[in-house]
């Protein structure tokens, strides 16, 4: 490989300046566009975050906003915004909890269902595979809106379905007037999570596990059959085979998939904005929904910019951390 590569590189690199420039010519269109619509706005955002940019500064002949230095950042970190229930640290805590609780459920459900689906001699495999792809192919915004209505206390399909099930067991229908979206009190008194969190969790589990199952299926099929035969000869039981053979060999595929899941779930704006709107009283607000509301509702552009810089830094940290975890597990490859 190395020799052919160098032959190719020699042709690519060449001796003349034009040839040495050619990689940059290939990059030029994308870089130009990104400088204008991505990097410049990012730089401008950093500037905005140091000012009190608001609606008054929107017109192109408007005066420059006041320079506040780091005041926006301090106000956010000290929860001094004058917005009700707006607590940055609480939101960050919820956002992280939301992310990890979801991904843990996605990955474990994904693996269990993949293993079940991979059982030799199982009937209707292809039908199950066709059905399980459904949550992946529907746009998330549609799913969020549909579930929003499904969780309606009076007319939604969740409460209606539960009532029907309850009738079979002679449970009074009044028990199923569950106010999924807007009940402020915590259903489990010692656990600071609202019903809307559980509604979101249910929806996102519905949405998220099939992808993990697909990844796990691919990895499962690449596990050599001989390993199971050897384990069997050594007297390993079914569960032992799962814990000692299947799970360790799934790890190289599942860890990166989980990392991908973490980043996606951390930023799951669409689902939360449409399903709970971050409510009740901001108890299911994640950083992105809060940022959008700062722009769209409060119209505090400078403050929103500072908030976005925080999001950027947190995501950077999260990415570096997850990259570190992925690298650490890379040596585990089969």
């Amino acid at each position: 490989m190395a020799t052919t590569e160098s032959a190719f590189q020699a042709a690519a690199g060449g001796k003349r300046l034009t040839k040495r420039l050619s990689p940059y010519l290939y990059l030029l269109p994308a870089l130009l566009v990104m400088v204008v619509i991505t990097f410049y706005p990012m730089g401008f955002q950093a500037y905005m975050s140091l000012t009190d940019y608001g609606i008054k500064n929107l017109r192109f002949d408007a005066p420059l906003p006041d320079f506040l230095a780091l005041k926006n950042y301090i106000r956010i970190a000290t929860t001094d915004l004058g917005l009700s229930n707006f607590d940055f640290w609480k939101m960050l805590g919820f956002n992280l909890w939301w992310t990890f609780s979801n991904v843990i459920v996605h990955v474990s459900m994904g693996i269990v269902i993949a293993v079940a689906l991979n059982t030799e001699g199982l009937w209707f495999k292809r039908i199950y595979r066709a059905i399980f792809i459904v949550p992946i192919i529907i746009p998330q915004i549609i799913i969020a809106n549909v579930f929003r209505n499904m969780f309606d206390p009076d007319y939604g399909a969740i409460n209606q379905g539960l009532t029907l099930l309850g009738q079979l067991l002679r449970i009074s229908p009044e028990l199923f007037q569950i106010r999924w979206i807007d009940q402020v009190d915590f259903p489990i008194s010692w656990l600071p999570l609202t019903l809307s969190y559980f509604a979101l969790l249910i929806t996102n589990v519905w949405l998220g596990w099939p992808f993990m199952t697909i990844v796990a299926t691919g990895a499962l099929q690449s596990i050599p059959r001989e390993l199971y035969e050897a384990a069997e000869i050594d007297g390993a039981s079914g569960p032992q085979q799962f814990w000692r053979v299947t799970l360790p060999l799934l790890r190289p595929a599942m860890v990166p998939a989980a990392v991908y899941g973490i980043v996606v779930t951390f930023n799951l704006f669409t689902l939360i904005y449409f399903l709970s709107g971050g409510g009740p009283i901001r108890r299911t607000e994640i950083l992105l929904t809060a940022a959008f509301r700062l722009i769209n509702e409060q119209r505090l552009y400078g403050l929103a910019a500072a908030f976005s810089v925080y999001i950027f830094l947190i995501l950077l940290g999260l990415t570096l951390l997850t990259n570190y975890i992925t690298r650490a597990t890379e040596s585990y490859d089969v």
Partner: protein
Amino acid sequence: MSELATSRSRSGAWFSRFSRPSRGGGRRLPLLQQLLLQLVLGLVALTVLYPVLWILSLSFDPTDNLRPTELRLIPPGASVRAYEKVIEQPTPNPVSFARLAFNSLRLSGGVALASVAVAVTAAYAFSRLRFKGRQVLMLMVLTVLMLPSIATLAALFVLLNRVQIPIGDGLFNLRNSLWGVGLAVLSTQLPFAIWNLKGYLDTIPRELEEAAVIDGCTVNQAFLRVTLPLSVPALAVTGFLGFMSTWSEFAISWQFLTNPQDFTLTMSLYNMVGQYAGSVPWSRFAAMAILIALPVSAVYLYLQKYILSGLTIGSVKG
């Protein structure tokens, strides 16, 4: 598409018609275990289908009842009335479904085409060429890639709002137009397209180009005559993914657009739920949701093998 299919068989397992030879050497599954697994998987399948069946059944409700009062698989007198109503005029805004669909189509098609066209040469450079600053530039693209669009929304809103051009007797405000929305969406779609295409290009055997170079091609010719034709399926899939995410984009268009004639499909769907729902019967909401989802879901279904193998390859490689 065979090129892609063969080089990315890892998750192809999901789609294969034939399953792997049996693990226990042709051992059959005991009936009890079979039934137990069928029960579990059947229940899971039911939970997956429940919302889909609900929304389908709702959309065929012939009455103008505001809300459904009971669960029914097939509503009595099922008809496509709700679809007709929605296609006529989905929301109280005086704008037709055709107009909204045209806006969404223009926006998504434009972003998809632009992102792929601009990304492809950069993706090629990252995948094949070695040059100074490659690592740094790739890291920059990756950094932007992880940044969600809302995280730069404030700046894009302010900057695009400054571009106001007098046209005729009015003022064209870039922010308040589909062009502005397109640019803002492109700013997050482009890094994705670069990265996704690079992933695909990495799987096209390098030897093909090397052979072309040995035969006397320049690098440009190798790219144009060998790599580009081979990556047409990858371009299509990347373009489609960009199309789909723009098709279901909401935050930017909701923040930017004020004229109902410019609204997109997802914006008007939002007008039919939650606090805005008011007097919109849910049968119409259901019909609208299906009309928005159906085209992209159908294409996704058709392309699923290539899309999902791309996604899992990306995640498997980290």
